């Protein structure tokens, strides 16, 4: 087969596609140009909602820390929660800026690179959130009890109780990670949990990193 045949063949495909489009104009009619939200727009909306919720939480935690600066237990718990929430707010704001900078009028490789980096950032954010959550349960308990019930958890339940809670969090994290790695090796794992397990096992981060590297290699062949 000559190479020009490929283009000739493709022109035939085009002609049939034109005929098919003439018969089926509904795709064009269905596009309500002004109001259609793109998938990227929907993602930005989701990130914005998360960002607002976390910013509100950060303000609350900051206020709590300021009010309890003389109480070492609640203050330390609020500081830990504050640092974790601040990191999340920074990650979400970075993602939002990255989404806002994506311009579909730019060269394809540049957009693909931006999307790959965005995916990596989101994968890291979700992985870190899931990995740290069991450990944040204890400071959250201390802050919530103090803020809403006026109870100092460390004084009321004793340090061993708080330490046991922290230990349960660590154990839960270890078990979840083990289960995720085992399930990851099993292609028949139930699909609703698939993504959660992939994230926990670090597969999402690894896949995103691989995609970033693959594109870099593709473009590097340009040199």
């Amino acid at each position, binding site marked *: 087969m000559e190479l020009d045949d490929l283009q000739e063949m493709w022109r035939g*495909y*085009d002609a049939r596609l034109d005929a*098919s489009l003439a018969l089926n104009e509904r*795709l064009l009619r269905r596009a309500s*140009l002004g109001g259609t939200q793109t*998938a990227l727009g929907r993602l930005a909306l989701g990130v914005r909602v998360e960002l607002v919720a976390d910013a509100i939480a950060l303000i609350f935690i900051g206020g709590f820390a300021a009010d309890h600066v003389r109480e070492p237990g609640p203050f330390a718990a609020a500081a830990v929660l504050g640092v974790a929430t601040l990191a999340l707010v920074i990650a979400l704001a970075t993602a939002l800026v990255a989404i806002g900078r994506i311009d579909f*009028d730019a060269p*394809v*490789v*540049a957009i693909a690179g931006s999307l790959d980096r965005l995916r990596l950032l989101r994968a890291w954010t979700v992985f870190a959130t899931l990995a740290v959550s069991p450990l944040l349960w204890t400071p959250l308990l201390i802050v919530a009890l103090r803020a809403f019930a006026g109870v100092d958890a460390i004084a009321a339940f004793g340090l061993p109780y708080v330490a046991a809670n922290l230990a349960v969090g660590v154990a839960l994290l270890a078990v979840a990670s083990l289960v995720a790695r085992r399930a990851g090796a099993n292609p028949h794992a139930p699909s609703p949990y698939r993504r959660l397990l992939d994230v926990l096992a670090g597969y999402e981060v690894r896949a995103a990193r691989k995609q970033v590297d693959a594109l870099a290699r593709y473009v590097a062949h340009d040199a």
Partner: protein
Amino acid sequence: MKRSAAERRDAFVALLERHANIAVKVARAYGRSPADHEDLVQEMHAALWRSFERYDPERPFATWMYRVVLNVAISFQRSELRRLNRRVDFDEAAVAAAELHELEPDGRAAQLARYVAGLGDVDKALMLLYLDGYPHREIAATLGLTETNVATKLARLKSRARSALSDGADKAAEGQAHGTR
């Protein structure tokens, strides 16, 4: 003179209708099911409309449109956005294959379309632009690669296309000889 919003919209719709097959062709190459194709075409129309303000009428509309729809298709496939769309099941994949055969009763162009659909994201864009007859310079500008790189990658892709299509033809002949469909 500045055009009114209605005039701008009419001009856009007229251009879009004239070049509608670009979006459909790219959607078919990147989407995996008829549902994907429809979602993608709608996404493309929305993105084109949003970017239309920045479109320079001095440039060919088809080239600009190709760049935007390829970016939408790649964003759909590469990023986590795909997960926002429903999963493709085997029935949908079968419908997509049937749709392809309906368009290509002789089967050869279907093989080519299938070969293109099986390529990596950027290679797919490269091949689509080549098959639509764009010169290396324009392909390079659309993709953000150098002309040398485009030429090297295209040579590799064309050679692989040739052997994939020859293999397909051999298998089809073998299938006919054995009375299979």
